[in-house]
């Protein structure tokens, strides 16, 4: 009757954290504390954007383009069977550490991914019942409708995962008889040095390098991006508003929307957006983008490097977007904003 949403239970939520990073030891960067834990929490990263003032970019721009590691990934067409056979299985899965993600839309197609030796298969009903691999129901609980889906997780690094073992033969049976269609994979080797001969060469991979793309300076009406100091700690509405407004503003900068431009002149009938806050300063921003099949560990490393080379009173924001690999095709994303003037303070938005 009325167009009320059925419920917000399964919708994506955004968690905001405001805190200090603590001491950063370059030899032993933290992995368990926020915001570093949020970075490593991701499985695959599709895009990393850095937003920083132009003055800052002038200082560290050279090191971004030279010192930062350029991630290499490749695109290859493989059937699932190839993963558990021969040198590929021994070198990449048993000994090495690789990240792989197959094509397809999550929640619709059969999507496979490999991380830390754990092969995850997101299967529809028919493929699941035919493959004969035990898995768990995927997606919302309760009534799962006519198109229920399953997720099968196989740890290929277990000592029992060897050719000739009973459980492994089931997997080989499924890959040989049922899940046979070759799919396009994104492949990333986490080991620093490539092995020769590369077992992947037989499948003719297309190698790619994700190099940073630097945008033209964006002239913006810069709001104050420091969080308000709440007089009453119980009443956090000011911080709520701040978190929503700044997230929106950063997203518009990412989109390079003309609404945040300092010389924007839009009819309020079409858009009533104004940057948050009352006082603005005109400034120029630079956006640096890496796009490709990136690993969370690379993002972590880049973020730590960034923190180390940025002067303490400058600000920058790091926006990371994953692949749409959630159970319903939603993608995880987070934004870390290092606050200006304050030495180690940050605001973290996590969308999941």
């Amino acid at each position, binding site marked *: 009757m009325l167009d009320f949403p059925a419920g917000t239970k399964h919708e994506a939520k955004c968690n905001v954290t405001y805190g200090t990073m603590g001491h950063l030891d370059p030899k032993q960067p933290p992995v368990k504390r926020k915001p570093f834990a949020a970075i490593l929490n991701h499985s695959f990263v599709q895009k990393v954007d850095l937003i920083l003032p132009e003055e800052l970019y002038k200082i560290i721009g050279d090191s971004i383009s030279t010192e930062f590691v350029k991630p290499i990934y490749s695109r290859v067409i493989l059937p699932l069977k190839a993963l558990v056979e021969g040198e590929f299985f021994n070198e990449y899965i048993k000994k090495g550490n690789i990240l792989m993600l197959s094509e397809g839309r999550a929640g619709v197609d059969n999507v496979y991914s490999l991380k830390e030796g754990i092969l995850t298969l997101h299967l529809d009903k*028919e493929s*699941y*019942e*035919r*493959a*004969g*691999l*035990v*898995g768990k129901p995927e997606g919302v609980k309760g009534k799962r409708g006519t198109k229920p889906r399953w997720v099968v997780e196989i740890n290929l690094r277990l000592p029992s995962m060897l050719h000739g073992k009973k459980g492994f033969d*089931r997997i080989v049976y499924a890959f040989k008889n049922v899940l046979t269609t070759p799919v396009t994979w994104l492949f990333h080797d986490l080991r620093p040095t490539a092995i020769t001969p590369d077992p992947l060469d037989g499948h003719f991979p297309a190698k790619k390098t994700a190099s940073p793309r630097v945008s033209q300076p964006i002239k913006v009406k810069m709001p104050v991006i420091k969080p308000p100091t709440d007089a009453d700690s119980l009443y956090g509405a000011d911080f709520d508003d701040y978190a929503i407004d700044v997230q929106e503003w950063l997203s518009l900068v990412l989109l390079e929307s003309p609404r945040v431009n300092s010389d924007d002149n839009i009819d309020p009938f079409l858009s009533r957006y104004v940057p948050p806050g009352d006082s603005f300063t005109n400034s120029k921003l630079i956006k640096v983008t890496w796009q490709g099949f990136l690993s969370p560990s690379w993002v972590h490393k880049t973020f730590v490097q960034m923190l180390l080379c940025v002067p303490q009173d400058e600000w920058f924001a790091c926006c990371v977007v994953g692949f749409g690999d959630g159970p319903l095709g939603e993608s995880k994303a987070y934004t870390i904003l290092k606050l200006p003037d304050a030495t180690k303070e940050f605001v973290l938005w996590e969308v999941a």
Partner: protein
Amino acid sequence: MVSTPTSKNPHAKIPDKGAVAFSLLSQAHSPETAERIYLEKIRKRPLHLKPTEPDTAQLARRQARQLKLQKLKKKHKPAPLSARQKRTLMLYDILKAEQKYEIYRPLNRMWIGYIQEILGLKEEGGQVLSVEAAKLCSADFHGAELEVVRSRCVSRVGVKGIVIKDLKSVFEVVTERDVVKVLPKEHTIFRFTVPFPEVKVEEGKGRVGESNVDEEKKPKELVFELHGDQFKYRAADRANKKFKSHFLPDL
């Protein structure tokens, strides 16, 4: 009931002269006639002690008694065994020693011949029409080599063996590793293959080179998938059942 009075001397020719009846008769008849009449009509006259009407109750009792005796004498069929008796006697159990794949391999060969006959397969291959394929519904599946290719219980997928029992809702198969497995038909799809009959090679002509040519020429095996959900009938019931095409929501 009739009975005749008997005297001590029934063969005495001259009756008792002192009898009143005889003296009266002898007054009216000659002595011979009087004697004859006396003997026939008086001395040997039947004496009806009781009227001879049948006693129905007695007759019924007698008949019942005789029937009972007859029944006892007749060999009657024993009552069929109850389910519990069958279980205790282990009539339908397959002993461990008999759970061998090798034992059932000839049965499988026979079954393949039987199905080839039903489908009307020829050596050179060809198509199987739906009319012939429909006969598979009422065919017997004891001896077929079935493989589970899809099941709601995924751990059952991949089990392959020769059917030794085709019950209402389960198949019992013996696998190649000599294990008997019970495969429910519900929510399961089975697959079986039927090869085309082999070309009989005349003796003397069959050489190695020729047989290789035959291998290449040989038509591919027919592969059938059996929807267990639609197959939940006993073999005997299925023989006369008409299968209709329905909408299957599970497919």
